[in-house]
């Protein structure tokens, strides 16, 4: 079980063991909320974008900046589980050299473990735990998996969306969903040709949608350029403390979906649906009654 005394004293091992228990479902939201009744929320940032755009490399700079201010920070780096073996290769540390060289940073790699989203569904419990233990800033690096990424907006306060000139284009619709939510758009790899072109395309896309236009910044993690501007924009956001209404909407549907998939009858109902013993309406009614 969770060792509260050790946890509260700042014991890293107790923290990482507790996160494992959350991952495996041994500890649920109700227990976290009971043990830590007045959770003040940490500042939660998420960084997302297609595979290989440079999310991890950018994390290294952001972490470096935060560490300068002597803040207690936590990083959650998510990578996909293999649908075949159930295993996962969690490799974000390779590119984040400062992931393990200070006691002020807690760095945890998480596998998606076959859940439908690009972030594990119990990540919000992990975030609650970290907040309760007084981590000031939390950074989540997501799997670059497309539409399901929209969920990261639900658990984070601020969202950084990374693009690169050489990145495979996401499906338009998926990208639109994410762009709508991004607080800052980063075009990484500005050292490469066509980076300007990419940035222009993006700003054009925003000219067409009038109500939301996040700053578009060019950076190069390779050449360490553009990061001062990024830190300034992040600082501005952090001071504004704003929260999108749209994010609340997603939070709600995310939480709702969790309720559904954790419902005690869900597999029974699925089976009946599959064998056509009940209709979709009957299935929904049944689940609703029991909620």
């Amino acid at each position, binding site marked *: 079980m969770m060792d509260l005394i050790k946890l509260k004293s700042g014991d*890293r*091992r107790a923290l*990482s*063991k507790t*996160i*494992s228990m959350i991952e495996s479902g041994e500890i649920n939201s109700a227990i976290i909320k009971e043990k830590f009744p007045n959770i003040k929320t940490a500042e939660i940032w998420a960084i997302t974008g297609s595979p290989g755009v440079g999310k991890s490399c950018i994390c290294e700079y952001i972490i470096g900046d935060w560490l300068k201010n002597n803040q207690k920070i936590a990083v959650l780096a998510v990578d996909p*589980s*293999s649908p075949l*073996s*159930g*295993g*996962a*290769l*969690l*490799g974000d*540390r*390779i*590119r984040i*050299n400062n*992931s*393990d*060289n200070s*006691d002020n940073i*807690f*760095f*945890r*790699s998480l*596998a998606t473990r076959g859940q439908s989203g690009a972030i594990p569904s119990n990540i919000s419990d992990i975030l609650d735990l970290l907040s309760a233990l007084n981590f000031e800033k939390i950074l989540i690096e997501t799997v670059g998996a497309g539409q399901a990424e929209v969920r990261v907006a639900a658990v984070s306060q601020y969202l950084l969306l990374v693009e690169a000139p050489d990145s495979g284009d996401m499906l338009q619709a998926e990208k639109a969903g994410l762009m709508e939510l991004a607080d800052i758009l980063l075009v990484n790899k500005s050292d490469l040709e066509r980076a300007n072109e990419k940035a222009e395309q993006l700003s054009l896309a925003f000219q067409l949608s009038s109500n939301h236009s996040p700053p578009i910044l060019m950076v190069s993690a390779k050449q360490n350029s553009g990061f001062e501007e990024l830190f300034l924009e992040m600082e501005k956001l952090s001071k504004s403390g704003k929260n999108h209404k749209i994010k609340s909407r997603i939070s709600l549907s995310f939480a709702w979906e969790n309720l559904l998939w954790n419902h005690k009858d869900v597999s029974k109902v699925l089976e009946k649906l599959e064998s056509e013993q009940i209709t979709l309406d009957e299935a929904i009614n049944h689940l609703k009654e029991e909620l």
Partner: protein
Amino acid sequence: MDERLRIIIAKPGLDGHDRGAKVVARALRDAGHEVIYTGLRRTPEEIVRTVIDEDADFLGLSSLSGAHNFLIPKIVELLVASDCNDVIVFAGGIIPEKDRGNLFSKGVRAIFGPGTSSTQMSDFIGSAVKRRDESLPVGCGEDSDWHWD
């Protein structure tokens, strides 16, 4: 594979040979485990921090540079000092036969050389987990002569 383990594959010291570590990391992933690869040139302190934060069951150290006699015992020592007696430590790379006895006596439970197959690794991991499940000593800080050969 019936149990999903969390396994760190780490490259301590200045050793730049990473092919073997990557091969091993991939093989363990394909066996159904969650593998965290640290990347090159980690210090013993950094490796121990990673073991703790990631809640690792196993730590696999890859060494081809000849520094194993110093680095590996140092890492085990730090693990024990950090209350990680139960973490199971194994190693691979270029580690001559004559050096192995000493490393085993320091708590390393298996050493694999060039040409290791994934079946050999899985057999070791299976046996080590079985010992752990039976509460027999197998962690790096637990007192036992047991090792894989």
